[in-house]
């Protein structure tokens, strides 16, 4: 019951957030210079041709009517038609979402598997060379630019060692092995920075909980150091780390523009770049809106997780 109230409150907060966001997305795109009708019609088109295109896509309506038309259809799952290739935006996004989700999950797995254990290790060896080394690794991995790391990895593992393909996307159902191989390098690129962030936060949260009175109690019980660290300290340290991890995952769902570009992965990032370049209003609006809704869904999930791992919320 408490959970339902808690979840209901979070959900109720999400609705106005999405609405405000939809207005911003719509307006921002309209404020950009450039005319979609011109972009579609090309150089040769005359004034009448332009008017026809504008009328066809509702671009001649007052701006608030354009917004309500767009929002009304968006609510029933119709995000309009791409100005560039006349495909439905919803179908276009769904196709790319599968790719972006795969990349986001793979990156997150790498980040969690590397970042959290290293953070725990650094905190439990606080003040030793291991702690210093781990902190250096963490800082480096946060600071490395994605495009540079991507190029280095391609050079090392694709060009020289030829372990992984340098670019390209193969759908999972066509060839699962090649598909997975294609995601390795981009996931490492995206996962590295997040691993660094998780490492730092896990370390500081662990240092705090290792100094807590309940950890002294756990040691006084005669528990092994391993159990003290992994059960008593880590469980409490994970509370802030879960929230942070969810935010990072949410960012991944918006698409990784540079990384997708480097590895030619046709996900949200590439779609966004193309959409902006061609003034494809419908695609950009739909993409930003879907990313935002996904982000909100992820934070809702994080709230639920938070509720599960933090019994104080349960009352």
């Amino acid at each position: 019951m408490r959970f339902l109230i808690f979840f209901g409150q979070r959900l109720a907060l999400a609705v106005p957030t999405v609405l405000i966001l939809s207005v911003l997305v719509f307006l921002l795109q309209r404020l950009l210079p450039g005319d979609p009708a011109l972009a579609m019609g090309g150089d040769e088109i005359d004034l009448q041709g332009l008017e026809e295109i504008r009328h066809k896509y509702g671009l001649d309506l007052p701006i608030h009517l354009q917004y309500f038309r767009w929002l009304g259809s968006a609510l029933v799952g119709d995000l309009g038609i791409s100005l560039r290739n006349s495909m439905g935006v919803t179908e276009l996004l769904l196709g790319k979402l599968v790719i972006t989700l795969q990349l986001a999950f793979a990156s997150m797995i790498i980040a969690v598997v590397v970042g959290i254990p290293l953070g725990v290790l650094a905190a439990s060896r606080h003040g030793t060379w291991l702690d210093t080394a781990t902190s250096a690794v963490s800082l480096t991995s946060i600071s490395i630019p994605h495009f540079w790391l991507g190029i280095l990895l391609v050079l090392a593992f694709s060009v020289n060692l030829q372990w992984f393909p340098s670019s390209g996307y193969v759908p999972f159902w066509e060839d699962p092995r090649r598909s997975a191989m294609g995601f390795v390098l981009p996931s490492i690129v995206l996962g590295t920075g997040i691993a660094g962030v998780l490492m730092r936060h896990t370390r500081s949260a662990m240092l705090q909980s290792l100094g807590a009175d309940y950890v002294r109690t756990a040691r006084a019980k005669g528990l092994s150091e391993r159990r003290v660290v992994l059960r008593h300290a880590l469980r409490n340290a994970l509370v802030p780390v879960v929230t942070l991890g969810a935010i990072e995952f949410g960012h991944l769902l918006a698409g990784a523009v540079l990384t997708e570009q480097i590895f030619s992965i046709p996900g949200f990032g590439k779609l966004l770049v193309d959409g902006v370049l061609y003034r494809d209003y419908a695609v950009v609006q739909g993409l930003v809106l879907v990313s935002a809704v996904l982000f909100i869904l992820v934070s809702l999930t994080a709230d639920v997780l938070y509720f599960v791992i933090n019994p104080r919320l349960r009352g």
Partner: protein
Amino acid sequence: MDGADGHSLPVMPQAAAAAPLLQVRDLSVSFAGEAGIMPAVRGASFDVPAGGCLGIVGESGSGKSVSSLAIMGLLPPQTARITSGSILFQGRDLLAMSASQVRSLRGSAISMIFQEPMSSLNPAFTIGDQIMEAIQAHERVSRREARDRAIGLLRQVRIPAPERRFSDYPHKLSGGMRQRVMIAIALACEPKLLIADEPTTALDVTVQAQIVELLRDIQQERGTSIMLISHNIGLIAGLADEIVVMYAGGVVERGATARVIGHPEHPYTVGLLGAVPRAEPGDHPLVGIDGAVPDLRHLPPGCVFEPRCPFSAAPCRQDEPALRSLLPGHLAACHMAPLDAVP
């Protein structure tokens, strides 16, 4: 629960006569910090009688908590060093044991409760879980048996509706209840020695009395030896058979409770007794001790209490007094003792 009147206390000569359960000899502990080396305990010696209760009294910084952490093997390894001494538990030196040997005693033969009941339980686990863990850390028992024992322990520390409380998280319990849970955890494996470090300091006065009563019952019913640490000499007087008074890391007076309370032979003990509020009729002005505990990094050359001592004389500023026997079993570290003779 004001035990300043020590004459009504039950005296347990048979407990004091038996071989002590714990013998601390010449224990010295230092902390290395950025400001230099700080001697927190300086050559302390005391015994915990088997089945009896030893009270250690002193201000914050007197070394009483550090001594208890040394016994538990819970001193922070990065900063603390035990520079001398031995801690004999049932005749075996804890300081000579390996870390895993000490760990197997910790929580089973020797257990400890702390000053901060509000933060000493893990907020992420139910109290039942935390008690069962203490049992299962040392004994091979089924989950079901551990659960039954944990509920039994909750009942013994007088937590109402123990079956229901078993699955509660700590945040649902009051401070007094949490301290009872801590005691249940400490008792989980029937310890020989229970170290209680300021167990009532963070609690309301009425709750304090209940916890003290609980500790007394545990000692009498189970024969558990208790090492009770407090800054409150009245609390200690109510439970302890023997008292050790610590000041600036050293033992300044030691003896049977009734004797030390009735005839304190160290000026610091006299000061501590004067600082206890009394509920008896009559005019008892509350007297504090002037000055503050000295900086342990820069101790005075003679007696460490000399700067605050009303009995101070010339030798006190030169030589540090050693503990000496004034009566059989009653020792004080003071050049001027016995104080009755001081004009």
